[in-house]
């Protein structure tokens, strides 16, 4: 559209100063779906983090389990008078509790690996963009080769070599994710580096580290946040998949993937709830993160800004 619609809305020099953050919040609130998704996510996240306080039993404390309560359908009452709202698994675990504990593990793994991968990836991307030349070429070829192979394949190979364990799966997820952060940061850092404010900072003889981290990095944050959101969702799904395949978390750790894998045995006999509800919890979590991420992309994309 040309002409008249492009004009900026009149800005009132009112009492509230429009900081970038306030504007971001206001833009974000425009989408009711995204706000709802954020609410759902916050609820799930809080419930998972507080699982030891709010769940009816500790599903990984074997003393609290009774094999007699195994495979009860949703709504049944256990021998101890506990109501299994979503049923129980083969060992008599309350599904609600098991899901909450599993979600906590998922979040811990996803967030830890996300933060580490963001750190590694951002450093690689920033240095590659800033120093350029052969340094950049070598780093980015490495990233390219890594990205040519599917995440699940890399994870399988790494875990096949390293074995199971929380630390090992976090390591695998970092290896998988760092490349996305590196590429994103490099792309926006390359754009920023050529801008005049960086030139100005150079002319002021500011130290390189200050230019990199205080000047260039903050301007690369918006795409980084978008990638981060999507990567968290992806790594939750990937961790669950690997655990389901039996190469991810060890059976001693509460995990949605393992829970679903256990339920798989019974699905043919119609005991659906052991697999169904943990999957549903995963789905709602991932969808809500993706919806937030989708909208974040729209809000933070300067090209789409009205």
């Amino acid at each position, binding site marked *: 559209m040309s002409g008249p619609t492009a004009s900026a809305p009149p800005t009132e020099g009112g009492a509230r100063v429009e900081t970038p953050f306030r504007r971001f919040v206001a833009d974000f609130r425009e989408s009711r779906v995204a706000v709802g998704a954020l609410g759902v996510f916050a609820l799930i996240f809080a419930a998972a983090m507080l699982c030891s306080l709010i769940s009816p039993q500790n599903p990984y404390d074997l003393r609290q389990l009774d094999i007699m309560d195994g495979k009860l359908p949703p709504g049944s009452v256990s021998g101890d008078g506990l109501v299994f709202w979503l049923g129980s698994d083969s060992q008599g675990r309350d599904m609600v509790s098991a899901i909450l504990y599993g979600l906590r593990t998922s979040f811990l793994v996803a967030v830890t690996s996300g933060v580490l991968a963001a750190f590694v990836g951002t450093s690689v991307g920033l240095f590659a963009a800033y120093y350029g030349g052969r340094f950049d070429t070598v780093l980015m070829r490495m990233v390219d*080769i890594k990205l*040519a*192979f*599917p995440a*699940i*394949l890399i994870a*399988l*190979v790494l*875990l*096949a*070599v390293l074995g199971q364990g929380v630390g090992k799966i976090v390591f695998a997820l970092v290896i998988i994710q760092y490349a996305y952060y590196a590429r994103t940061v490099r792309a926006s850092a390359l754009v920023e580096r050529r801008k005049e404010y960086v030139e100005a900072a150079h002319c002021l003889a500011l130290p390189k580290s200050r230019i990199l981290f205080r000047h260039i990095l903050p301007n690369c944050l918006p795409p980084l946040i978008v990638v981060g959101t999507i990567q968290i*969702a992806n790594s939750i*799904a990937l961790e*669950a*998949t690997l655990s*389901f*395949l*039996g*190469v991810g978390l060890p059976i001693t750790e509460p995990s949605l*993937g393992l829970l*679903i894998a256990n*339920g*798989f045995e019974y*699905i*043919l006999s*119609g005991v*659906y709830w052991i*697999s*169904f509800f943990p*999957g549903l919890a*995963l*789905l709602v979590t*991932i*969808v809500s993160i*993706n*919806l937030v991420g*989708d909208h974040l992309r729209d809000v933070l994309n300067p090209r789409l800004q009205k």
Partner: protein
Amino acid sequence: MTVFIIRRLMQSALVLIIMSLLVFFGVFAIGDPVEIFVAADADQAERERAIKALGLDRPIWAQYGYFVVNALAGDLGRSFVFNIPSIELILQRMPATLELASCAVMLSVVIGIPLGMFAGYRPESRISKTIMATSIAGFSLPTFWVGLMLILVFAVELGWLPSTGRGQLGEFLGIRSSLFTLDGLAHLALPALNLALFNISLVIRLTRAGMRENMPMDYVKFARAKGLSQKRVVFVHVMKNIMIPVVTVIGLEIGQVIAFAVVTETIFAWPGMGKLIIDSINNLDRPVIVAYLLITVIMFIVINLVVDILYSVLDPRVRLADAGKS
């Protein structure tokens, strides 16, 4: 064009060398190759023989030479479990995986492109909004869980389709595939759909985005101003422009599909190389793991190469930019 292909071939060869070095160092330098290629219950004589065959008594660069020569000769050790050469084992399982993967890709094209075009052509309609909402779900649904739910609904509750195995194979033009028998097709339906789901969503989103990007362009309006029918404008002018990114992404997704076949094959007990690798990891059948790794690396490099060449065939701008340089 030939210059372009030669250059891409050289790049691919380089990636292959790098990957073989990575695998080699992963296996020989970090791990203990004897441990990897010789079963734990082997006797001393057998170990000696393996060390000799692998050249493990030689310096490291010579070991790499042995590794490459052995790999080229198709000898990367015998599977501990099946007691046949690991490469042969994987090549046996490969057709089943390729069959599953190609059906999944076909499904994503056949379902994804029309839905995506519709959603992009009438973005405000309720059907389009439903399509897009479903595609977000398709993006977010963990593949393995969808597989279980498909089994639950279609195999357990409705009893329409079988949930495990590959079914009866038919032969047509010398190709053995479950595509050629009804029983085979019934067995293929659920796993192929399961594997395709993510890509259907991806293709829908890509096609829709392309549609929305292209429809307001001047060339579309100009084509309409020529008096062309809307059908020709959409299906020739716009479609040809959309297909360039869609084909590229689909091509690159073939690799993803083959990798994700690991999950689908495990759930549906599909006798392909994906199920084999999971079984091998669980059985510590390491020669198979190494062979699988090398073979998939080669497959990926070939796929990337073919996609790049296809891309340059589709987009005249790329093709000619290259011709200009030569």
